């Protein structure tokens, strides 16, 4: 491991100053991702800027008009234990409960969770990878059982086919959360909130991060809006084993029912793209319709619309459909389990 400098930041300004000015500096929160990447030599930062001590960004606050503001340094364990999260955002609570292990959740921050790097084994190992600066993506034609179905545009090896690993991001997407990003030099009043889906980008050779953030940009808050009355939520995650595994495919569903009519449905898919993948077409078709087996079939088919299996991940298509079906069952029929 390459030696690096370490600064425990005492203010956000100080952190941002170093991060935006020093090439090779890296923001360090819980470190559960950054440290493992550094140890493996996948990234070699010169300077770690630790923001964990900035207590101002570790909070849960009710928003006026409902909803919840979550400081980016809040740990996943703190979120998981919060009653409001449990009662009003069960999909988020569930997505955290199936993230990693308790030890990990005690350490990992929600901001770091959104900004973590892909788990792609080509990226994290000594394999050809665009994000290492290589000419081709090794996964595109290799062992891609854990890779993307959507959004990568082309499997010619010029595009990263990794998926975003976060579970909470999928739930937050279905809950239509926003993230507040502090840009260096901007006064807090000017910090803008953007929809969570817009935070992510497909990593590229020149810009190998999973987010659109520039050096010095810091996610400071996540805002989860109040959900419609009577909305039902679920988060389902398919894994290779019962715990401590990333999602093969996951689904967050948020439904608002008016009698047996689906007033609103939001479906976000995890493990299938470089960001939480919203099944917008399926959502549209569902809106305003009475729940029926035919409607469910249609939503299920549309959720997989446009899927482009890479070879070894063909199974993700039926898996995704199966999970969406089970998620719909869970949010539309209280009498039956998943």
């Amino acid at each position, binding site marked *: 491991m390459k030696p690096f400098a370490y600064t425990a930041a005492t203010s956000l300004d100080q952190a941002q100053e170093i991060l935006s000015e020093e090439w090779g500096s890296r923001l360090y929160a819980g470190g559960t991702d950054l440290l493992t990447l550094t140890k493996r030599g996948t990234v070699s930062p010169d300077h770690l800027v630790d923001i964990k001590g900035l207590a101002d960004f570790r909070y849960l606050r009710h928003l006026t008009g409902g909803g919840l503001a979550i400081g980016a340094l809040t740990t996943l364990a703190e979120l998981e234990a919060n009653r409001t999260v449990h009662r009003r955002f069960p999909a988020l609570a569930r997505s955290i409960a199936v993230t990693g292990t308790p030890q990990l959740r005690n350490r990992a921050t929600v901001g770091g969770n959104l900004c973590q790097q892909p788990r792609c084994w*080509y990226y994290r190992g000594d394999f050809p990878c665009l994000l290492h600066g290589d000419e081709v993506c090794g996964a595109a034609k290799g*062992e891609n059982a854990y890779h993307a179905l959507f959004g990568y545009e082309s499997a010619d090896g010029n595009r990263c086919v990794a998926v975003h690993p976060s579970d909470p991001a999928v739930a937050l997407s279905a809950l239509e959360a926003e993230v507040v990003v502090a840009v260096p030099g901007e006064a807090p009043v000017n910090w803008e909130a953007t929809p969570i889906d817009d935070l992510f980008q497909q990593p590229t050779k020149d810009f190998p991060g999973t987010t659109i953030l520039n050096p010095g940009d810091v996610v400071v808050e996540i805002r989860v809006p109040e959900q419609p009355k009577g909305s039902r939520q679920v988060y389902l995650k398919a894994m290779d*084993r019962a715990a401590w595994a990333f999602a093969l495919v996951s689904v967050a569903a948020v439904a608002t029912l008016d009698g047996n009519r689906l007033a609103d449905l939001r479906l976000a898919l995890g493990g299938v793209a470089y960001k939480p993948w919203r099944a917008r077409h399926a959502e549209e078709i569902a809106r305003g319709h009475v729940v029926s087996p035919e409607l469910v079939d249609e939503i299920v088919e549309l959720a997989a619309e446009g899927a482009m299996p890479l070879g070894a991940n063909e199974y993700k298509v039926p*898996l995704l459909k199966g999970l969406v079906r*089970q998620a719909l069952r869970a949010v539309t029929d209280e009498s039956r389990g998943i």
Partner: protein
Amino acid sequence: MPELRKTVVEIEGRLHEEYVVVDGEDLPAWPEDRVLSRVGQPLPRVDARAKVTGTARFTHDIQLPGMLHARILRSPHPHARLRRIDVSGALAVPGVLAVLTHENVPELGWPGRPLFDTVLRYQGAEVAAVVAVDEAAATDALDKISVEYEPLPFVVDLEAAVEPDAPRVYPEGNVSADEASVYVRGDTDQGFAEADVVVEANFRTAAQLHNCFETHGSVCSWDGGRLTVWDSTQHVFGVRKTLAQAFGLPMHDVRVIKQFMGGGFGSKGGTGRYTVIAALLARQTGRPVKLLLDRREENLATGHRHNTLQYIKLGARSDGTLTAIYHQVFAGVGAWGWVAPVGGPARELYRCPNVKTEEYAVCLNLGPDSAFRAPGYVEGTVALEGAMDDLAVALGMDPIELRLRNYADTNQPRNLPYSGKGLREAYRIGAELMGWHLRETTGYLPRKRTILATLGGGGNHSPEGEQPPAGPGGVEDLVCWPGTQPEDLPPHRRRGLGMASQIWGGGGGPPAHAEVRVNPDATVTVATGTQDIGTGTRTVLAQVAAEELSIPVEHVRVLLGDTEAGPYGPISAGSLTVASVGPAVRAAAADARRQLVELAASLLDAKVEELILKDGRVEVAGSPERGIALRELTARLGNFMVTGHGSRGPNPEDVAVHTFGAQFAEVEVDLETGAVEVTRIVAVHDSGRIINPLTTSSQVEGGVIQGLGFALSEERAVDPQTGRVLSADLENYRIPTALDVPIIDHVMVPGADLAANNLGAKGVGEPPIIPTAAAVANAVYDALGIRPTDLPLTRPRVLAAIKRLEEAAQAVEAGAESGKEQAGEGGTR
């Protein structure tokens, strides 16, 4: 008087005839009805406190004054020629003392392959070793070694490697028909001709990695010309022998120590190349050297259970009697290695006059394989027991009934009756506990299945010259109509029950020796050169000595894991420790007891025959007032130790000693997501007398859990483009977590195996892993109606099976519309 005897010893499923030294006549086994008060008790481990409090020192914990740290540079290529190596950069790193490469490695009497080769046949092959004052410096220096490799064509896929035009690991080719292990009994052609029903199937199993908690490693220290090694090994005496040979030392100048073990599972049976490297670097620098492998090296270069490609064919009469078994195995051994006895179950488990097994080693550009808990039998049981369930379906017979129909009372390859075989009892107990009858009456698959469709496969695989219809494809898959399912299940879930049988050795044998020293305060020290691989050997041996001497277990201390602490003890492998070392300890304790009684006789002025030793007293039988407390007796002797010697007697010649068992699995398969959930395992095993039910249950649970990993999630992944291992960590190599463990009910078939040895006990280390995967796969077969052929049962495989099921159902529906006959008549057997 020591004497030389010839005896048959079975290790890891293979028989060896050996000359062994035994001491005098063996004791008879404790009879079945003998009330034992220490043996048979569920005692917690004698070293539990040391382990929990961290005072137990594992190899990783060894710290010596002035100790250096070494690391190994390993080949990044699956196959390459080493063109040039320049270590000057590494030597310039502050703190680095030496670098070893093929250019400067001293000549050794090491019997293994070169420590550093110039043709590197797998990713992870040793290229150089660096020793430095700390681990960080050694690790940094690895990056500073500049190496020029000439990459060579490689093959990492088992199916590709058997093709004649595959890249070659060695110039001679990847599959050697000469070195194949072929077994023939009777005439299989005739057997198949006599059969009314023939089933055939292909199976694939994945490479399973041990991933011991404690990685491989050694600490080596020279004191003048003497070498001491703290090694993570399953065989201290084996390592001593090889190191003495390697360094040309008298054996008494090599001491090997292994006090506490963080797992071996077969991967630590030999002498590690890292051990020899550490010893060399320690000699060169004159300082102790610690060389521990990391998790990644563990996954690349320390052995694995070979992956297999298996073809099996069974012939039977309509009443279920087997007429022929043919089993062909291709095992991906890696860059070198051995084929474990994958055909063992086919040769032994069922009574069948005509059997042929062929086991081929296939070399691959991957790390060498090694033994892994019941090597071969785990893989072979998947195929045999899967095919037996196929046969049961084809015959419309209950799987247990079919197995009982072919129950073997003799070991057929050796033509000897079994010393004891509780398999029938295991079937009965297991079936009852699992509720096997439900399979017929309340909803699992009907006994007679309708065969919906047969789905064809692709090409065949066989070694050059051979033409059996082997390899995946070429065999038809059957799809069966599922029976009614239990009512409590939602329609997208299917429940299934499956079972599988287990046969294994585990009878142990000589040589194994022990010493029992009775101290002046009547406490006892048992010394033997075996080691505790983590199964609880210390505890069990203490119980045996305490039983024979009739003293509390707490008064016994067991010294082991040190070539200088006790007489020879065997490798901890093949489930043989209890059955080999246990009897030696009992014999030594009996020898000590004899001496004590003789001494008491002169003190009490009694005849030896009149005296008994019981509950810490020697007394005249019938008149307890004429007696003396053991403690008083030993105190009278001054500072003197009564020392008893004992050895394991030869194995019986007229019977074959084996362990048996059966496991039952209940699973639920989610048809929508392909999730396989094992809801319950019932494990029933016969290992003779159980010395400690608590340590036994740990073995059964551990075996089942490791078997579940093999069945459901553990799989080495290799990148086809670079030939490098993608799963070389515990994130991507998926062992089961606590949440993956189902309810495990287990029972040991009661009874001692009196012919086996003087304890009547057999091993329990390996048996419990053997049938788990087969039982799970058979349960999934029961649930889905389509037999899984490839393990582990990950989503891609299960979802593909479900897809085929749906296609078959659609085909039948389509057929039903155009006339019913086809599905009804043509499909039913």
